[in-house]
């Protein structure tokens, strides 16, 4: 059975270097020493009961709050205090007393387990001081940089603000200009339209006359050809020699059918033929001319699919973004690429008319005037649109939460990369995070800017990017960016702690806090 020492002599090396002996039960912090008075009954710190002092640290749990066993593992909810001279004092759960594992750097937790612990407090203290010192330097310099960043950001913000104001003034002028030019354009277009219509109408009439002439000539030619015996009449039998005129498509033109075509007459002269000609002219083939080839039909498979623009989003996802999602390239374009490049519409076969004659000088002048008005208008409108875009962009930038002092402004429209074994990670703050295989392959969106998501007391310590490319059977990719104080702005590490949930560590002066105005010595004896 374990032999438990009730009291422990603790030797302290205080800052002055004079050893002082203080007696108190094992595991009790100095702040609570007053409750443990030797040889006086001990009252559990929760007041639940009072026990004789020899039951303090006797390796049996008497108090519900565990306060009677500060130096043993007997109570499930107890805690043990190690002084850790040279480093930081700490409390450990009493279940870690004598468990064979060195928890306290001063080795006091393993007094009866056989564990071989070495006192590492001095070393730890030294290391901690070094780290703290380094941190302090970084913080100091970082904080200076941060001040610059804040100044620049404020300057930039003001500039942008005034620029927006200026631009809004200019925009107003442009608006007016556009309206004026619109009126000019509309005024010029009315006479242009009328002149064009006149010209077209004249041309249509002319065309109709030409067509009529041509038809008459063809009819006369046909009459002569049909009138085999040149008797000045075309008879039923003469007509029958033209099988192509067959109405029921049985291959022969019967007498009745021919008679039908001739309006019931046995034979017709040239003037009567004028009424027969419309019945036959569509099918009629001149014997002297070669048969016209049948119009080429477009093969049905060529009218397959509309052209698919490679830039358009092939996924049936609901969030088809306005931006070009070029990172969403994938293997599934192949099918689309096989679609024919253009759709061929059958050409017009009967374009026998001549081209429309050019406009007369008056009309042309009206057209030119209208065109100029249009160009002027469009130019002005374009300028207005561009101005709008610029204003919107600046306003968008101004709307971001760049921190309490706008210290994160400088990250806007920048990108930072880190190359790891397999991938190149790219963080574009306030925009997006992406990952690209080092040795070729397409980029994957690891999330677009969501929000600041740090703890309540400082939300600017974490950035959240979400709605990245979806994972198979999993969520959409998302990234948390952890910001720490540093002199440089750099991505220091990336990881994927959970499938498709990325973590990027990022240093920036913008999160450096004002250094506390104290010396850097660790508070190793705070309780004295």
């Amino acid at each position, binding site marked *: 059975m374990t032999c438990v020492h009730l009291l422990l002599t603790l030797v302290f090396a205080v800052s002055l270097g004079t050893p002082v002996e203080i007696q108190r039960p094992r595991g009790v912090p100095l702040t609570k020493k007053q409750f443990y008075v030797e040889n006086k009954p001990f009252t559990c710190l929760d007041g639940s009961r009072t026990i004789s002092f020899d039951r303090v640290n006797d390796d049996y749990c008497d108090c519900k709050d565990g306060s009677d066993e500060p130096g043993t593992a007997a109570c499930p909810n107890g805690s043990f205090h190690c002084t850790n001279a040279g480093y930081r004092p700490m409390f450990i759960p009493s279940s870690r007393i004598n468990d064979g594992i060195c928890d306290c750097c001063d080795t006091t937790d393993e007094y009866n387990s056989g564990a071989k612990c070495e006192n590492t407090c001095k070393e730890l203290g030294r290391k901690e001081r070094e780290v703290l010192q380094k941190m302090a330097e970084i913080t100091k310099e970082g904080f200076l940089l941060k001040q610059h960043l804040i100044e620049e950001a404020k300057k930039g913000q003001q500039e942008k603000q005034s620029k927006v104001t200026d631009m809004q003034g200019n925009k107003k002028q442009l608006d007016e200009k556009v309206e004026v030019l619109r009126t000019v354009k509309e005024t010029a277009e009315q006479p242009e339209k009328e002149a064009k219509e006149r010209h077209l109408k004249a041309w249509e009439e002319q065309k109709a006359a030409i067509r009529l002439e041509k038809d008459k000539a063809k009819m006369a030619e046909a009459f002569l050809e049909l009138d085999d015996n040149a008797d000045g009449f075309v008879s039923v039998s003469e007509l029958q020699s033209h099988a192509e005129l067959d109405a029921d498509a049985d291959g022969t033109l019967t007498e009745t059918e021919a008679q039908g075509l001739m309006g019931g007459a046995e034979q017709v002269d040239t003037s009567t033929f004028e009424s027969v000609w419309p019945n036959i002219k569509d099918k009629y083939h001149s014997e002297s001319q070669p048969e016209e080839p049948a119009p080429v039909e477009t093969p049905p498979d060529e009218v397959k*699919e509309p052209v*698919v623009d490679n830039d358009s989003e092939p996924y049936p996802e609901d969030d088809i973004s306005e931006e070009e999602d070029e990172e969403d390239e994938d293997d599934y374009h192949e099918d689309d690429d096989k679609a024919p490049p253009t759709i061929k519409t059958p050409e017009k076969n009967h374009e026998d008319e001549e081209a429309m004659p050019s406009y007369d000088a008056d009309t042309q002048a009206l057209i030119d005037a209208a065109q100029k008005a249009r160009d002027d208008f469009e130019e002005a409108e374009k300028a207005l649109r561009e101005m709008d875009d610029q204003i919107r962009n600046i306003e968008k930038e101004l709307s971001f939460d760049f921190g309490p002092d706008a210290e994160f402004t400088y990250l806007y429209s920048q990108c930072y990369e880190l190359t790891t074994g397999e991938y190149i990670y790219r963080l574009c703050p306030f925009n997006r995070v992406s990952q690209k295989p080092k040795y070729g392959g397409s980029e994957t969106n690891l999330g677009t800017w969501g929000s600041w998501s740090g703890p309540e007391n400082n939300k600017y310590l974490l950035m959240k990017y979400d709605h990245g490319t979806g994972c*198979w059977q999993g969520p959409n990719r998302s990234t948390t960016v952890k910001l720490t104080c540093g002199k440089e702005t750099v991505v220091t590490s990336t990881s994927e702690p959970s499938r498709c949930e990325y973590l990027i560590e990022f240093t920036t002066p913008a999160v450096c806090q004002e250094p506390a105005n104290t010396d850097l010595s660790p508070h190793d004896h705070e309780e004295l």
Partner: protein
Amino acid sequence: MVSLREVCGIIIFRWVPLIVLLCVSARAVDRSNFKTCEQSAFCKRQRELKPGRSPYRALLDTLELSDSRITLQLINDNNKVRLLLELYRLQGNMTRVKINELKPLKPRYEVPDVLISDPITETLSVVSQDENSLVLSLGGKDQRLIVSAQPFRLDIVEGPQVLVSLNSRGLLAFEHLRARKDTSISHKISSTVGSMWDSLKKEEDKPGMWEETFKSHTDSKPNGPSSISLDFSLPGVEHVYGIPEHADTLKLKNTDGSDPYRLYNLDVFQYELHNPMALYGAVPVLISHSTDRTMGIFWLNAAETWVDISSNTAGKMMFGKILDFVQVSSEAPQTDVRWISESGIIDVFIMLGPKPADVFTQYASLTGTQSFPPLTALAYHQCRWNYNDQEDVKSVDQGFDEHDIPYDFIWLDIEHADGKRYFTWDPSKFPQPKEMLQGLMDKRRKLVAIVDPHIRVDNGYKIHNEILSKNFYVKNKDGGDYEGWCWPGNSGYPDFTNPEMRAWWASKFAYEQYEGSMENQYVWNDMNEPSVFNGPEVTMHKDALHGGWEHRDVHNLYGLYVQKATADGLVERSGGVERPFVLTRAFFAGSQRYGAVWTGDNAAEWGHLKISIPMCLSLGLAGISFCGADVGGFFKHPSAELLVRWYQAGAYQPFFRAHAHIDTPRREPWLFGPENTALIREAIRQRYALLPYWYQLFYNAHRTGYPVVRPLWVEYPNDVATFSIEDEYLIGKDLLVHPVTDEGATAVTAYLPGKGEVWYDVHTFQKHDGEQSLYIPVTMSSIPVFQRGGSIICRKDRVRRSSSCMENDPYTLYAALNSQGSAEGELYIDDFHTFNFEKAKQFVHRHLSFSANTLSSRNLAPDSQFSTASWIEKIVIIGGSQPSSATLKNAESALEFEFDSTLAVLTLRKPGVNAAADWTVILR
């Protein structure tokens, strides 16, 4: 130019089929990947045979009797093929029945390495014989084995009761090996078998006898049909259990309208609940139970096997000689069981009980008992596919300490190895494995790294090259090395049926062979069905070759051999000193000897939490006690409530490991808010406090073969109300657990068994009478657990960060008194990790008893010795009365005590005696 909307419309339309497909496959098992009986040619052929008069006839004049067995020939009157029947009476009330072809064309496979030794036989004597029957004595108690000649059947009777009948429904069917008709082999048939050949020719070939195609896979079947079948009738039986592994109820269902239960080790992606489909492991053991008797049927066959269960009425198939013996009650219920296997022989062990414990003893005498795990393996295991790198392992380890949650093992899945080359480490993620292992060792914790049996075909990989040079790979039907697709891509499969291969494999776990490994690293064998992604039913082609045997013959045994070889390796690397710990997914009868199993790739669903109970109970009945399900569910993301409930349930199941799929969000216990962290911490702490009890139960399981967790009926065999209970169970015989497995539950109803028994809530000490259904309101912190009145359970209430840290801690005894005011229990202590308990008898085994106000500790193993630093810190006596004094007799010193009169709980303060000592406490 087409408008954007049109483009999207077209594309959406074109993507619909693919999306639907993905969604469907993500939801549940793709049944079309796995055969139904109808799609398995031999099962279909066999199942077409309906009960009726058997064509088999026993040729009584061929009887040969020796001390150890009798043999008889059977003839099939339809085709004149003769079979050889062997009957054995085995020590411990068992009967073994073997049937093989009298003269098979070539030897048929008989399963090796499953029986721990040749079973000890006892003399079978002929009691009487006439022209159509033979009556054999099975020893005492009027047990007789009756052989009826025509039609052939076997009946085991005890007095006027038929215990079991074989072939009483005429379903004995033995497809004899035959030459293929279209080959020239018929010319070579010798004259002696000529007549047989003639009759053979009359038999029609049926589809699938010589070749079978499933999906794109063709099974060449060079040996033709070879399946076997036999029926068993169990009069008076309505409840049968066992034949794991199925995601189904504890009590087996009638399969008349469905597929039979299938036993064929398969890697089933996202398995479904409540159906008879095969899963990762197979134990062909069926247990029958009625208030009269518990029995077992062990069908020793490693080929694909199907088991039909049907309910019937006794007496329908009674005729002939046995009517001389038995009283036939045509009203009595009866369960009929039919086993069908694709190849091998009929080799069946009928375990005659009569009590549940007898059946466990009988089965253990055949296939061995549960291996005794190191204590640490019974603690909590933290697993995930995958802990990404050393840094991740370190931070998870620290997370447990920061949140003051105990754990013993952290696990590394396949991503830890370099390109899935097992026995190696990914050089960028795990550059310093020993540093990592040492870090864990400093915290007295352990690590498991996965080693799967598929070996990456890669001539830069040492393991592959050695297997290749030693010619240890399984061969394909054409004699080349069998290759299949698994995690590493193209992979070879070592032939674990080859003892030389296994010895070589074991040697690879030596510390100097397995670079970066250390003594606190243990092993996990996954994918050992074996899983072959591009193979038929995601496993190996049946015509692949293991030496002279087809994969068809050995399939269900493969996983057992993998775990055996691995466990052997862990023992060897320590020079035979340390107990191994190996987890396996595939298993067979006898796998209990090699470590733990888990229920495979379950899902984060309430149904999966519920089914984990009957799945592990079924495995326990079939000998495999060390069972658990992935806490939280492998696939999908559990709600905080489900995760907490799963921890609470898992803390009371034998193998306690959380695991998660790589695509799920992280779920370490502290990621669900402080309240849930506290609930999970408490569940795990309850596990650690109870480790002494678990350890003692595993020791007993190792000694006796009794399952660690048991269905209620095992301990209350006459209480019919318990026969179908599967939402609660017993740990040992003293703790009853009814986990909360319903979402939003505000109460559970637990059945407390046993007339005259009392049960105490272990958290509140409230007392309840047995043989009642108890309504228990629950909150999120409730884990309903009851201690049986009459038991003493030892706990270690000082829970620390790992079980190793608690080795020397003191015990608290919880004595729950029965209605007679007495209680008893055991305490087992050893070094918790070596074989010295067995080899050097270094252990403490105490019997604790309380009666007549005296509590004492008595040595159960006087010839053993072990010194422990542990002592008795507290004794809690529940359900007694207030004494006026308590005296520790050894020291004649008075013990201080407290008595809570409302709950009748007496707490004796600090007896302080060593746990190994004799001591007595007297209350007055």
